[in-house]
Structures are given as C-alpha cells and as structure tokens.
C-alpha cells in the first residue's frame, strides 16, 4: 500500500564550488553518487545568466557565456555574505559587473530589457533553486533538505548568508559542514576499491591530509581522526593557486602564440580573454589524460580563429613553479602542526585540479613512505558532495533538536588528549590505547592475554607516552614496492615516529586468575577518560569475572 507515510524525507548533499557544483544522494545500495543535471552534467558550472526573458543556470548559462558575458554571473560563491568593498578587487573581469548595493556585493545585469541589480545572495538562491529542481527531476520526488559543504575559510556571516540563500530556495539546511570533513567522511563511509586503511587498531586512528585543489584555491587541512571523530588540527589556504592558475599559464602561452602568428595583442581585450580562458580549461583537462591537447577558439580577435597545440611535457615545464608552490603550501600545513610527511596516514586528493598527473606524482614523492596512502578512489570533484549526502543520511536518524544543538560550540569544543595513553606489554613495548589528540570524553576497550601457562597474576602498567622519531632508517623490504624494486635495498626511507612510554600513571595487578594455557586468558581492559582528564581503568578477566577498577584523577583536580 503506497501511502504518504513511507515517503521518507529526501536529503541531498550539495557542494557549491567557486566554479562547479555537485549534487549527491545515497543510493539504495548505501553508496553515494552524484546526480546529473538536465544536460547530463554532474559537474554543474556555478553560473547564473540573464538572457532576454530567461534566467539560465549551470550548463545552460555556461553555453551562452561567450555570447552574453556581461549578463552572466560567475565565480560568485566566495562573495556570499561579503561586502562590495571586500570583493571589488577580486571580481571576475569580463563577466557581469560587480556593483555596490547598500554595501553588499551585487551584480548588474540586463534582464527583460531592464537594468537589474541582483545581490550575491539572490544569485545563490537562484542557483540553488535550479540544483534543487535538477535533483527533483532526477529523483521524481520532492527534495526536503540538504547538507551543504562550505570551505573552511568561510566566515560565520558567509555561512549564515549561504544558509539563508538555501532556505529561500526552499531547501531546509540540516547542516553546513566543512569541505575537508565531508571528504574524510566520504572515505570513511564509502569503500569502493576495498582498500580499507590498515590502522593501528580497531579504533581507526589516523592523521589525514586533505589536499583540495579546486578552481580558485588550494586548501590543505590536517585532520586527526580518532574513533570516528574528526578534528581539524590546522588548515592552510592559498587563494592564488588552483586550476585557474594553470589556465592562466596556458592562456598566456597561447596568447603569445596568437600574437606571434597574427601580430594581434589580446592582453587588454577582455572578450578575447574570456574566450581563451574558456578554451584552455578544456585543453588543460585533456592534458591530464592525453599527451598532447589542442586549443581552438573561433574568432579570437578581429575575426581571426586560433588553433594551437601543446604537449604535456611542455605544460609540465611551464607549470613547474606552480607545482612547487602547491607542495610548499602542503609542507607548510604539516609544519604548522609539527608533523612530518612520514607521520601522515592518508593524503586525500580533492578538487578537479588534483587530477593533474604531474602534481599527483610530486605529492607521492613528498609522501614517500609507503605506509602513507595517497587516495583518490572517488571522483575528486564529487567526494565532498558524497560526504554531505552521507551526513544527511546519518542525520535522518536523529531528532531535529539534537541536530540543531549538536553544532553548538559547547558540544563541538572539547578537550583533546595532549599525550597518548598506553600499556607496556610483556616485551616492554608501548601499546598505544588512546593516541594524542583524541577528543574527550573517550572510552575504549581492549583485550589482553597472558604470556605464561597458568599465569595467576597479571601486571598492568599504564603510561603516558610521547612521540619519538625513529633514528635508524630501515631498508625497504624487497618486492614490496614494485617501482623501487631494483636496487631498492639501498633506499632509505624516513620512518614513522613511534610512541614511547614517558610517565608512569598507575600499576595494577589482577590476582587469583583461573589457570589457562598461554594466550588463553582474556583480560578486558576498559579505559575511560572524561573531560576533566579523570581516567578510569577497569581490568576484568572474562571467565571468572575477576575485576579491578582504579581511578586516576586529572592533574589539576
């Protein structure tokens, strides 16, 4: 019986990029995927255009960009919630003009034969409305809400403004989440390639670096992941890198070529530049999969067509400086957090421009330790939207009140463990139970065992640990890494730092244990640390229920 009761709320994940946007949903099989718009595009240009009597968005707007540039609004996402003054110097040239509307950033366009001013928020509402409609057309049912991704550098005001724009588009905003966190969540919840990370324990502790090379900027976030909780340790943002910087290089290259061939200088010809930039973006994308790529612009200037070609090597040489700059920003992000490349477990590549092969190989060179995974299992433009869709489906199990209250700083702001806590085992090795940077409160359970037959007592020492960089550099094991196979015995790799015991917190002895063979005893150790750094440790032998619980008060108490 189909009835209204089983129409579940439909939540979409949205990421609005400065150049492209994507809409993601969770499919029946529990995996995330992006929806194509009416033109079959899953990377929907972030553009709104006014053409005669019509408002056009996305692919439709892009198609008419060249013929109607002055009524086409592009690159507006970062301007939301900002004043005209803040935006005027970085506004796009050649497309709709940025103007001041009561201090707000707005655009002047001609619509229905009249001059019209639309604020950035209104532009966003129009754009998001069209995304919502695309989703509804695809799904055949109304979309009720969304989880939306925002860059980490967005201000509260920008977030608010975007939220209002979205609600005005008739979409309830369940939550705004940071782009890198959405990406990390997507990797946590959606395994496609079956390449699940081998982590130190079942709690999946790791340090991720999320490298997002979008169209307009490079954003690097260092994130610690502990028991499925994400904490951004630091971010670095460079607004001058990103795909557009590569476009600029190519555009300059071809403009020179055009000048050489025709003696026409287009450096100050806005219209020609819009055309050329539009064309070289395709050239750049082609170069990611082909060794040469053409660039063709009809009637570039003075009615003269342009046809050019470039090969990948040439492009890579041209772009060398940009690559280095990108790597610098990444290592800056690491340094800010006192981390070395070898301490990183995963590097997640996000953003369309991270597809450039040379950049990927440079990043691999930087994170040379094979235990660091470089991940691009998901489409780098889409992964952020996937994360939003996953978050949306998680939220559907929670009451609105919890969802709303949960983003309050009283919930998100919480003490994190300064140093790791662990136990020293029979071989005098430090076993990390809870690593540093774990948000509090935390509770974890481990099962230990005996090393002697009929061991009647078991000795537990709980320590606080610190990082130690390993001195000796081990040799790469043969055959492990196919590229470096030959003569690989001599290659030295920086080793991951390990935790070593630093301060003894407590000793415990569990007595009168039942007689068991070696490794047969099962001792559950549950360790719980509250926000005041009070630590409760419970050791329990499972078959006999022998139990010992101790409480270590936090230092300041």
């Amino acid at each position: 019986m189909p009835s209204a009761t089983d129409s579940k709320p439909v939540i979409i994940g949205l990421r609005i990029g400065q150049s492209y946007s994507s809409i993601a949903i969770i499919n029946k099989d529990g995996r995330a995927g992006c929806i194509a718009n009416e033109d079959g595009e899953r990377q929907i240009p972030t553009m709104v255009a006014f053409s005669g009597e019509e408002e056009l968005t996305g692919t439709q707007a892009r198609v008419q960009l060249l013929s109607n540039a002055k009524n086409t609004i592009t690159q507006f996402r970062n301007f939301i919630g900002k004043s005209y003054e803040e935006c005027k110097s970085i506004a796009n040239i050649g497309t709709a003009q940025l103007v001041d509307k009561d201090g707000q950033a707005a655009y002047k366009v001609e619509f229905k034969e009249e001059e019209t001013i639309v604020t950035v928020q209104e532009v966003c509402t129009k754009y998001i409305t069209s995304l919502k409609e695309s989703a509804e057309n695809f799904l055949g049912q109304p979309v009720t809400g969304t989880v939306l991704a925002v860059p980490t550098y967005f201000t509260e005001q920008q977030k608010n403004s975007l939220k209002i724009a979205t609600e005005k588009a008739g979409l309830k905003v369940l939550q705004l989440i940071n782009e890198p966190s959405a990406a990390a969540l997507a990797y946590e919840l959606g395994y496609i390639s079956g390449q699940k990370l081998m982590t130190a324990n079942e709690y999946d502790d790791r340090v991720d670096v999320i490298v997002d090379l979008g169209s307009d900027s490079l954003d690097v976030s260092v994130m610690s992941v502990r028991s499925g909780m994400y904490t951004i340790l630091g971010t670095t943002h460079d607004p001058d890198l990103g795909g557009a910087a590569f476009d600029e290089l190519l555009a300059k290259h071809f403009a020179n070529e055009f000048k050489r061939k025709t003696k026409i200088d287009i450096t100050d010809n806005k219209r020609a530049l819009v055309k050329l930039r539009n064309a070289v973006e395709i050239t750049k994308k082609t170069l990611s999969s082909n060794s040469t790529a053409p660039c063709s612009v009809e009637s570039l200037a003075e009615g003269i067509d342009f046809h050019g070609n470039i090969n990948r090597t040439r492009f890579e040489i041209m772009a060398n400086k940009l690559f280095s700059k990108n790597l610098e920003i990444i290592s800056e992000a690491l340094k800010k957090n006192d981390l070395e490349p070898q301490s990183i477990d995963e590097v997640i590549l996000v953003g369309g421009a991270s597809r450039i092969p040379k950049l990927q190989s440079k990043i691999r060179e930087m994170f040379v330790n094979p235990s660091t995974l470089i991940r691009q299992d998901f489409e780098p433009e889409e992964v952020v939207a996937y994360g939003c869709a996953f978050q949306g489906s998680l939220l559907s199990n929670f009451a609105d009140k919890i969802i709303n209250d949960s983003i309050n700083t009283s919930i998100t702001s919480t003490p994190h463990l300064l140093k790791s806590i662990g136990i020293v085992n029979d071989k005098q090795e430090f076993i990390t139970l809870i690593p540093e940077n774990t948000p509090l409160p935390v509770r974890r359970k481990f099962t230990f065992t005996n090393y002697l037959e009929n061991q009647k007592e078991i000795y537990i020492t709980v320590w606080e640990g610190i990082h130690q960089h390993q001195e000796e550099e081990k040799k790469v094991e043969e055959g492990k890494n196919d590229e470096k196979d030959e003569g690989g015995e001599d290659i030295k790799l920086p080793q991951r730092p390990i935790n070593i015991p630093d301060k003894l917190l407590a000793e415990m002895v569990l007595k009168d244990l039942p007689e068991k063979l070696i490794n047969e005893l099962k001792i559950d150790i549950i360790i719980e640390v509250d926000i005041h750094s009070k630590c409760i440790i419970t050791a329990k032998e499972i078959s006999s229920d022998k139990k010992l619980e101790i409480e270590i008060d936090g230092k300041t108490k």
Partner: protein
Amino acid sequence: MSQTQFVLSVPPPSWTDGEEFRIHCGISDGLIRNVEPVGSQFLAHARRKLNNHSFSEDDRIQEEATTEQTEEIISEDSEEETPELLNRDPKDWKEQDHYAVLGLSKYRWKATDEQIKQAHRRKVLKHHPDKKASSGNTNDDAFFKCIQKAHEILSDPVKRRQFDSVDEAIDDSLPSTKVKGDFFEIYGPIFEREARFSNKTPVPMLGDTNTSKLEVEAFYDFWYNFDSWRSFEYLDKDDTDSTDNRDDKRYIERKNKAERAKHKKEDNIRLRKIIDQALSLDPRIQRFKQEEKAAKEAKKKEKEEAAKRAEEATRKAAEEEKQKKEMAEAEAKQKQAEEKKEKAAKKKAIRNERKNIKTHIKDYNYFYPDNETPPVDVIDIQLSELDSLFENLSLEDLQNVRKQLDSVKDRYSAKKVLIEEAKRLVSAGTLSADSIKHFSPGI
C-alpha cells in the same frame, strides 16, 4: 594488527603481595579543540553530551530504544477533530487551519519539525482512505486531502513561513495603553510571539525588572532594527496559475506584489508601534531615567561636597599650621625661661660657693694664727686674689675646692688647696703668675 602484542606479564618481584594497585600520576590536561560535527560517532557524542549521559548510560538507553521503537506512534496524545474540521472542503485549503488539521493547535509556530512529522504520521494512520473504507466508513477522502495539504505546507520551510506569517489564530494586536496590569506580563508574551518572525536568532526577550540596563538597551536596539521574514504571499488574490491569459496573469501578479508590499509596510508599522508603546511604558526605562537623573544629581552633589570638603581641608590645614607655630613658640619660650632659670641657679650656686670658700678662709682667720688679727691689707689682697682665681673657675671647680676645704683640718692644708688650684691654673696658662701673689705656689 596482530593481537600478539596484547600480552601481559607478571608483577615484578618487588611488588608487595597484598597490593592491588599503585597510582603515580594524573594525565596531562587536555587541549581544547573543535571536533567536526560529522559522522555517527560525533552524533553519538552530541547525544551523550546534550542528555548529560555517560557512555554506559547512553548504551543502555540506545538499547532500550531499539527494542521499544516497534511499538509507539499512535498512542500519543492527540486532539480530537471537530465535526467542522472533518467536513472541510480541501479546495478551500487557503482558509484551512493547518495546525488544527494536524492536531497541533496548541503548538502552532512553536511546533517542531519532528512534531509535525509525528502528527502527520498519526493523522495519516487514522484517516487514510484505505483504512476508512475497510472499516465500513464512507469512501470520502476529503479530510485526508486536508491532512496532506496541511503537511505539504507545514513541512516546507518556505510555505510554512508564509502560512505562519498570516496565522489568524495568533493575535496580532497591540494592547491599549490603558490596560492595567503588570507590564512584563502584558508585553513579555507579545515580544515572544513577535520574535518568531526574526531572521536573526537568538532574539532578545523583554526580561523582567531585574534585567540590566545594558540588556534592556540591547533589547530595544534589536527590536528597532528587527529583521523580519514575515511575508504576505499567502494572501495573494487569485492563484496566478489559474488564468491562462498572459496579461491577466501579469496584472494579477503586479497587484499581488503591490498588495504584499502594502501588508509588509503595515506590518512594519504595527511592530514599530508595539515597540514604541512598550518603550514608553517600560518601568525599567522610567527607572533608568530616574536613576540617571538621580545619578546626575548625586554627581552634582558629590561635586559640591567635594568642593566644600576641599575648602574645609585648606582651612583646617592653615589652623593646624598656626597651632603648630604657636606651640613651637611657647616651647621655645619655655626653654628660654628654663635656660635662664638654670643660668640663674648656676650663678647663684657659683656665688654661694665663692661665699663658702671665702667663709672658709675667714674661718681660718686668713691663714693667721687664731690669736692674731690679720692685717686689713692682707685680707684685701687675699680676697682680690681669690676673686681673680674665682674668675677662672667653673662651678664644678669651685665645688671641688670648697669640698677640699670642707675636709681639711688646719689652715696650712687649707691654704695649700688654694695654692694647688692657683698652680693648676697658672700652669694651664689661664692665669698669669703675677696676678697671684699671695697664693702663688712659690710661697
């Protein structure tokens, strides 16, 4: 990870048998950071924190919830539908009270999305046409349509706001200024009700008599700059979709637009009036004014008093100064007098001693045997020489001489005392040898 690492040994030999544990040190203080509000673990964290539950409490509750979930839903309290409500024509949905249809009249704009969802589910279960048909009811699904419409509107944030904007069940009016009663009881609920239209949250509330001046000022400041989402599309005349004629459509659209703007303007004025009126009646504002005035006066008074005090102080200082001077003078005088007295006493003592010495000499018959009468000139010489001797002797010297004379037994020794004294003075150079003849040491 291989579990072989998770192996524990026995206590060291030094471990005392009876002991179970030793605690050495607390763990280092944590570092405050922000966790990202994503993922199921975070949501569980939020749930525990918001409900103030420990890990184990939360575990238990979650377990119970999963077992319970299957039952609930219909049982919850629900408003009974009135016959008028049940007989509504779904076509007149614009006039319909959507909250009443879903049984949420007592909540209205306060109803949460969750409540709306639940209420809708309850109503659907009760009024679904399939269900009615099976229980022998008429096959009328009119009320079901009303329910669906109500849900459509209340579950859509935009449409719900449009409906809430014109919800007739909520009083819009402004109480008369003449209404008697507690200001806060009258105006508190009014602001509470108007607050629902705010784009900005949180909306400051009226508060009470004890609300601080700063907060009260912030309150009025907020309300005078109130950013309202209230809009009046819901009152639009004919649905623009219902006419095909393009011009008609435009005309209606324009008219509606003008109408909305007019309503909006009126509503702004209405709110403004409420605020103006509240401000004018607010006992706190009056009190603040009085306090301000009082404070001003107090300040003025304070100033005057300060001036007075300063004057008093200078006067007092001058007086003290004068007194001090007088005292010093008196003291000096007294000292002078004392000194004078002392001097006089000394003089007198000297005179006495001199007299005593002379008496001694006379008693010794000017060093002549008792039976002889000393010649007058010898007495004269003796006395004049004594005088020159005395000139050079201090009181102590005189006393000394006198005491010696007191203690000697015969005239020779007595004379010797004087000669010795003369000798001392001559050798000290204070007395010339010529001025002493009679008592000269040579004799």
